[in-house]
């Protein structure tokens, strides 16, 4: 197993991009990793079939935080259909490191949670009120 704490991973962990919330998200979901207690919630704003904004919040290790941050960067501006088709391989490729079995959950929790969000009602309808994020267990 090579070094997983590359400069990029540590930088994204310590200075996460796309971290925060969206004022009027059209879809959101929360994911939880019961084995380590990590959690992530993801909000997106979808209009005209594209993800115009994507943000995440949560607490996690370096791998899961970097994975969330990189995934949000990747999907912002992406077509909804394309984002829905993102594979595990795509998500892992963003990290640019070899991921051991023990860390797979950390690396893939953001993708699962994003898919959960995008799976709701086309992901395009505005959420009314302070939408309650749907829990997803990994």
């Amino acid at each position, binding site marked *: 197993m090579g070094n997983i704490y590359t400069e990029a991973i540590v930088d994204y962990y310590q200075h996460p991009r796309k971290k925060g919330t969206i004022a009027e998200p059209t879809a959101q979901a929360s994911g939880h990793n019961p084995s380590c*207690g990590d959690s992530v919630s993801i909000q997106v704003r979808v209009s005209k079939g594209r993800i115009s904004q994507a943000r995440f919040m949560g*607490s996690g*290790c370096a*791998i899961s935080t970097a994975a969330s941050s990189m995934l949000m960067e990747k999907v912002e501006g992406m077509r909804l259909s394309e984002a829905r088709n993102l594979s595990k391989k795509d998500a892992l490729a963003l990290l640019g490191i070899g991921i051991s079995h023990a860390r797979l959950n950390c690396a893939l929790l953001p993708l699962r949670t994003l898919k959960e969000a995008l799976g709701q009602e086309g992901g395009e309808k505005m959420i009314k009120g302070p939408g309650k994020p749907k829990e997803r267990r990994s």
Partner: protein
Amino acid sequence: MAQGPPLSALRKDFPILSRRIDGKRLVYLDNAATTHKPVQVLGRIEEYYRRENANVHRGMHTLSQEATDAYEGARERIARFIGARSPKEIIFTKNATEALNLAAGSLSELAVGEGEKIVSTEMEHHSNLVPWQQAARRHGARLELLEVDMRTGLLDEGTFKEKIAGAKIVSLTHSSNVLGTINPVAKIAAMARKEGAYVVVDGAQSVPHMRVDVGSLGCDMLAFSGHKMCGPTGIGVLWGKEELLERMPPFLFGGDMISEVTFSGAKWNDLPWKFEAGTPPIAQAIGLGAACDYLKKAGMGRIRAHEMRLTKLALSLLSEQGDVRVFGPADAAKKGGVVAFGMEGAHPHDIAAILDREGIAVRSGHHCAQPLTRKLGVFATSRASFYFYNTGSEVEFFARSLEKVRKVFGGRRRGA
């Protein structure tokens, strides 16, 4: 106290301790999760399969009789190890969790009614919390928890009297798998007995590490696990007072636990088999019997003293590091060899992964104690836990290696 060679000399009995992890010497500090097995235990299990393997009980042939003798012999060794009055009081289960489920399921049926009270603590492993939550729900009872004083890491003794008043069952851990706290079980048991409550003790983190005598604890039931005390996985023990076990209904049903079956009903077998349905974990029980012999020879008093020294060393070395926060009692005399900690700027998962690159095995996560971890104000902790085969230089290497974590995340060690 058993006299003999220093405990470090016993390292040679554990082949796995000479393993290398990516070229680095293995420093195994995850003993609260599972311990390693000495050749004496491994050899006994292999010998059983090579020479005696057969199903136990009701066998007329030689192998079955030998297997039964070995299995029941292990029960006797284990009974002696914890000071039980009779091997009938030793019930084999598949692990401590199953033992606690048996206690919660069966004892609550006997002892708890609607509107009544079960008491546990805030520092329980899920296996001694969730079964009681479920039992309380089934019987319309309520579950109240003795609180942890966050400043000391000890149970808040001020609330004992009020909480225990009127309880039907009090179930608590002898030693916390996160905080390390050793609870005043004998004192709590005495208070509970005055209330007429039964006392169940989770000994998963105490029986392997200190002399535990069920008579002096004053409890009614004690659960522990084989693989955390040099035995194999797949075997746990529930000890219970004979007269209590006699009155408790069976937990699992099927072969071996019955004395007579008709198409419409069944009569239960005698103790302890009433609680052992199906083919039991034979090799595992024999392995655990051998582990008890091994630990007895090493000396439980010496084991406790050695682990206390290691814990004191770890607490002292970590307290010198200002960015490290240790959870639980600061006094090694009040805790088992379990040191849970956090580091500023580093997630417990990453701490464990970076230490692994040095060959050091520690665990990270909520350690199956989610409510307690949340109460500590964190999502997870890293945990180093010791056994008698660990050395002071391993503890020093572990403490020194936290510098590697700082190196990755650019943290700076501060004075405490």
